[in-house]
């Protein structure tokens, strides 16, 4: 019998234009995540696209200060990286922009 922690879920990362050189030009990336949490979702994204790693802290996996992460339209601020993620959740990366 499968326990909750062994579930594999599907999470969609939305990658902004500024970071797409690191995601082979992809604007959306669906990944499979075991032990569903923000931390695991970041690890999977970085495994798939190592170039994106520079935008996250190596140890904590929190975004750098010029990036905000939104979990289903809700900004993650001062959050625990154990924050649970559910199947079909969306994680959106929104970088600071200054184009004017």
């Amino acid at each position, binding site marked *: 019998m499968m326990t909750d922690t062994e579930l594999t879920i599907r999470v969609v990362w939305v990658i*902004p*234009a*500024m970071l797409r050189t690191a995601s082979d030009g992809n*604007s959306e990336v669906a990944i499979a995540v075991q032990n569903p949490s923000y931390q695991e979702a970041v690890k999977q994204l970085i495994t798939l696209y190592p170039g994106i790693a520079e935008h996250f802290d190596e140890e904590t996996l929190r975004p750098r*200060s*010029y*990036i*905000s992460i*939104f979990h289903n*339209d*809700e*900004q993650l*601020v*001062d959050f625990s990286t154990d924050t649970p993620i559910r199947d079909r959740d969306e994680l*959106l990366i*929104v*970088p*600071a*922009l*200054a*184009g*004017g």
Partner: protein
Amino acid sequence: MNPLPELTPEEHAIYEWQMWVRDFGELGQRKLKNAAVLISRCGGVGGVVALQLAAAGIGKMVIAHAGNVQPSDLNRQLLMTYDWIGKPRSESIKRRLKELNPRIDLTVIDQNINEENAEPLVAQVDVVVDCAPLFQERFAMNRQCVAQKKPLVECAMYEMEAQITSISPGQTPCLQCLYPEIPANWKRQFPVFGAVSGTIAGMAALETLKIIGQFGQPLYGKLLRCDFNSMSFKTLRIQRRASCACCGHL
């Protein structure tokens, strides 16, 4: 508090159609006539914000934008003209805005926002619209808006994406709540269509009108993210940071 100025017969004729907008009306128009706005840089975004607010009948506008008109301005900076290449942008801005609205009280300074001029410039106005291409300018303006408790419309774009929020200091997240530090990797030159910068500029002008006219629901505590490739628009909820170096004390 001074009474709102009356509208002249000419102003009634010019603004009649927008005064039909529910919850705006003549009272909103008089508030607009009484209001002052600062626009930082008047390029692809700021130029269209300025045009829209001048057309709508803002009473006073202060614009900060240094330098001379460059050929590469002309794909999006609608206040710059071909015949003015190599000449001061500030003069082109004045000329174009006055052609549209000769009644406007207009100050255009041939400087960009910096730590020294942000304070006196923000002090002259009721609302600030941030359209600067450098984060140093954006952070300086954000700090002054927080210090002087002035609303700030924060809008920016990159390639086919744009984002906008309205900041009410002490009530909503400020720019540094969203992004605590200046990004090291931002490049002054960025990919841009005038149609993208102009679209987010139209939204910024509308936010300014709502804040001054006190109607509708400005994007307070919300970040509108626009992806013009897929034409998808998301309204995201943003949060204040208790530890924010700029507004955490409010």
